Every structure is written in C-alpha cells, then in structure tokens.
C-alpha cells in the first residue's frame, strides 16, 4: 500500500488533512507558530470572537478534573475589529491554509454583524458559529439549547455571508439531534460538535466552588465518549458535514471520530497539555490509516454506520 491520502473536504473547502486545533485552545495561532510550522495543519479554529472586546470572567478560570479540565474563560477576546485589523494579517504570515473563524455573540444581530465583517476576510474559509459557550450568559437566552433560537442564528448568519456556516453545538441538551436538525433546516452548511459539558468543582478547604464563575466547561479525554456518541447520533440525523470535537487526544481518536461520522476533527484541551500534539497527530495519521487498511482517510467518515 502506497501513500495515504489525508485530504478531506468540509462543505467544499479542501483541507490537506482532517486535523484542526479547536477554538479557545489555539488563540489566533501566535503561540503555536513559535513552536512549529502551522502549515502542517488541515486548518485551525481561532478563539471565539465577539463584536466588542471582552475581558472574560474573573479568576480562577481553570480547574482540573479526572481526565480533563474545567474552564470558565468567558470568551476573552480583543473584539472582531481588532482581530481583523491585527490578527488576520499575522495569521497570513504564519499559516497558508484555511482558517475557521469562530464567532461568538450575545444577540442574533451581533452574530450576523460579525459574520458580515468576516465575509470580506479571504483566509477565513469557514465560519464556525459558537452558540454553545457555557460560560457566558446572553441575557438569559441560550441560543444553543433552544432549537428555535439556534435556527434563528443560523438563518441570520446564512443571509450575510457566502462562506460555509458551521454551527457549533452544545452537548448540554436532552437531544442534540433536534438542535442539529433545526440548524440544518435553517441553512447551516455543516455542524461542529461538541462544545464543553457544563460542570463544577468545589474546594474542600474553602467549601466554595473552585471557579469564580461557579461552573465551567468540561473538556479533555473524559468527554471523548460523549462527543463520539453525539457525532454518531447527529450523523444519522442530518446530511451535513460534521467537525467532530471533544476529548480527542491521539491519531487513533481522530480515526474513531471519523468512523462515527466526522469529516474533520478538532483537537482542543489536549493542546494545552501537549503543545506539539496536533503536529504529532498529523505525522502519525498515515501509519494509523495503513494499520486500518485505509488509503483515503476521507473514506473513514461514517464508515462505522455501514
């Protein structure tokens, strides 16, 4: 068996491989570009960006958990205008591939306005709409946990951009396929799942929650089976490309996520423990494919359903 073809496509966007550092664990690429050539990556998803600059939640924002971590950053970011002005030109210097722009928002209008601005940013090939951050509160409205609200955001951003729109879904719902269907019906080009699971820790000494925000989002290997099951369910429910995300920490996990139905795979918390992990996974994927007898990695997508 010869060379393995690692290329995949996401709603018409070609990726040289399915490995994508996940939003919130990769900033705007600067920190990792100092460590390795980012051009080995299929794409990367930048930090969730909102209309206005945000400081985020008070510290502590991080807590350890068995096989994972909680974060309650609260979408700290410099705001869409500063990102377009200062980060986008830098990204062009450090990365040649497609960038996935993760977009946050607190109103339907804010999501749409951010996407309208990003429509003009050539290197952003996919807009990933974060309707699932567990650490911010949009005036009591949770777009990701309500099918009607999720559809409303989807339709609003769909109208203002020619770029593929991927809705990033929360696992903190009773039926993720209901939200997935609502997004699909409203015009989403793809889905990204899952965001973090809502959790908490309590400090035994102080008898207070460890996180100042009280709760945070659980990520890391602990959530991999949950993410895998949800990707499986959503793959059965809708005909849209899926970016699988949640607890992925190895090339084998990437293959498993693709077998469940993902067309590409995001790697999040594991980058924080091992900053070179995504590079290593890309380097290991051909061997994993050979072991599985796969010449084209894209052929793994959904293969476990057959």
């Amino acid at each position, binding site marked *: 068996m010869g060379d393995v073809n690692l290329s995949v496509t996401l709603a018409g966007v070609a990726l040289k491989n399915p490995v994508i550092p996940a939003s919130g664990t990769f900033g705007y690429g600067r920190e*990792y570009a100092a460590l390795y050539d980012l051009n080995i990556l299929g794409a990367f998803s930048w*930090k969730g960006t909102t209309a206005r600059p945000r400081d985020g939640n008070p*510290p*502590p*924002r991080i807590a350890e958990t068995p096989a994972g971590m909680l*974060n309650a950053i609260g979408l700290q970011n410099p705001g869409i205008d500063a990102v377009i002005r200062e980060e986008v030109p830098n990204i062009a210097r450090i990365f040649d591939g497609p960038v996935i722009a993760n977009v946050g928002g607190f109103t339907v209008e804010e999501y749409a306005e951010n996407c309208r601005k990003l429509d003009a940013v050539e290197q952003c090939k996919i807009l990933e709409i974060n309707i699932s951050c567990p650490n911010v509160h949009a005036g009591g409205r949770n777009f990701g946990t309500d099918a009607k609200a999720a559809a409303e955001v989807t339709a609003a951003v769909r109208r203002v951009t020619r770029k593929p729109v991927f809705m990033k879904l929360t696992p903190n719902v009773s039926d993720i396929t209901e939200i997935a269907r609502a997004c699909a019906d409203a015009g989403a080009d793809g889905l990204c799942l899952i965001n973090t699971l809502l959790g908490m820790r309590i400090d035994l000494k102080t008898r207070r929650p460890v996180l100042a925000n009280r709760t945070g989002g659980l990520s890391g290997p602990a959530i991999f089976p949950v993410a895998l099951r949800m990707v499986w369910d959503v793959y059965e429910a809708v005909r849209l490309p899926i970016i699988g995300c949640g607890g992925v920490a190895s090339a084998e996990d990437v293959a498993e996520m693709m077998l469940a139905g993902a067309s590409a795979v995001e790697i999040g918390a594991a980058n*924080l423990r091992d*900053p070179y992990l995504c590079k290593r996974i890309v380097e290991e994927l051909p061997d994993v494919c050979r072991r599985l007898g796969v010449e084209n990695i894209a052929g793994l997508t959904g293969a476990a359903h057959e």
Partner: protein
Amino acid sequence: MKQSAFTLERVRPLSVDTVELRFSGDTSDITAPGQFVNLALPGRFLRRPVSVCDWTPGELTLLVRIAGAGTRELADSPPGTAFDVLSGLGNGFTLSGIAPEDVILAGGGIGIAPLYGLAKALSRRGIRPVAALGFRSRADVFYLDEFRAVCDTVLVATEDENGLVTDILRQHPSRRYVYCCGPLPMLRAVYELPHLTGGQYSFEARMGCGFGACMGCSMPFRGGWRRICTDGPVFAREEIVWET
C-alpha cells in the same frame, strides 16, 4: 519554550509540606530567575506550573509545596523518574537598572523559591541582597542556609513569633525597591507599603497551558487583562492594579 524530559535525581524534604526536587535535563531555555516550568504528571491532565528555584546547565532545582494529590505524587516519585517538562516559560525578573542599596527581596512560603535564583543571580553581579522571608510558623521555615550563602542578610518572619514580611520591610524603610513573590494577599500588602517606590512582583495563578494559548490565567493589570503565564509571571509595580 522547550519540551523535554527531565529526570528526577534527588528529593529532599524541607519542611512538613515542602520538598526540594533536583532534576537533570536540558535547561537551555531557562534564561532568567523568576521563570517557571510546567511539569506533566502521569495520570493528571493539567501540568503543574512550578517556579524555577535554581538552574545550571543540565540541572534544575524546584521547590514544591505539597498542596494536593498531584504534588504529593510528584514528591513521592522515586529518583530516576522522567517527567515531561515545558521549560523556559514566563518572563522572569529583570536585574538591570536597580540601585543595590535600595533592593530587598520579600518572599512568602513557597514564594521564596524564585527569589533564591534571583539572589544567586544578583550575587553573581556583586550584589548581595537583603532578603525578608515569611512563613506561617517556625516549623514551616526552610531554605535559610541556602539564602544565607548568597545574601548579605536574611531576615525571617514567622506568624507565630515575630509577625509578617511586611513588618520586616517597614523596619527597613531605606530599602525602597522590592522583588516580591508569595500568595496574592501578601503581594498586595507589600505593594501597599508607603515607603516602597518600585519593585517587581511575581504572581501565581491556576493555568491551563502555561504558554499563552488558553487565557486561563488572565488577570486585570494596568492597560487591560494580561496573562500571568506569558505577560508575567513577574510584573513591574507600575503595571499592577488591584481590583477592590
């Protein structure tokens, strides 16, 4: 920043909850006292950020307070154990531009660790500093002999005997420039001493990554929120604001 394996060579108990760990490994990315390393522990997801106490080419010394199960496992590791370490993290203390007769080092508890490396670096430049070291009680005191070897004077404050580090600093009002590391309430109490006109303060925080990617350790500073891990951990007096 460099990711490499460090081998634990020696564990020396210093007090009831503090150990000195000596490692062999590649220290070439460590460039200033006050920097930290981020150490991966088997079976624990998050790395443990630890201040560099001392380093030479090929050797690294860390002081660790046993605060939970992870640091307990680290302290109980047998010599020969290899750890995955990110080294050369953070900015570290700046040594230039200070008047030696103004300087005092102020450390609290495990926060004295980076001040040892700083005192050693200063003494190599012919400045033997005055150090004020604070501990909870007499039984918690550690590393005095090591500090005495590189300092002009080592002053000790214990809460059960003679009070706090701030009491010592007040007794030396001509020492107006402080290098400070300790728990947050101590940093603030030192900062608020009226006779201090300048200084560098090393902050600690819960970190997700330690290299600037996750924004987990951000705190408010003058001009906006900054990351303890990459914009610090050492901040100049002028950069600090205290949220009330």
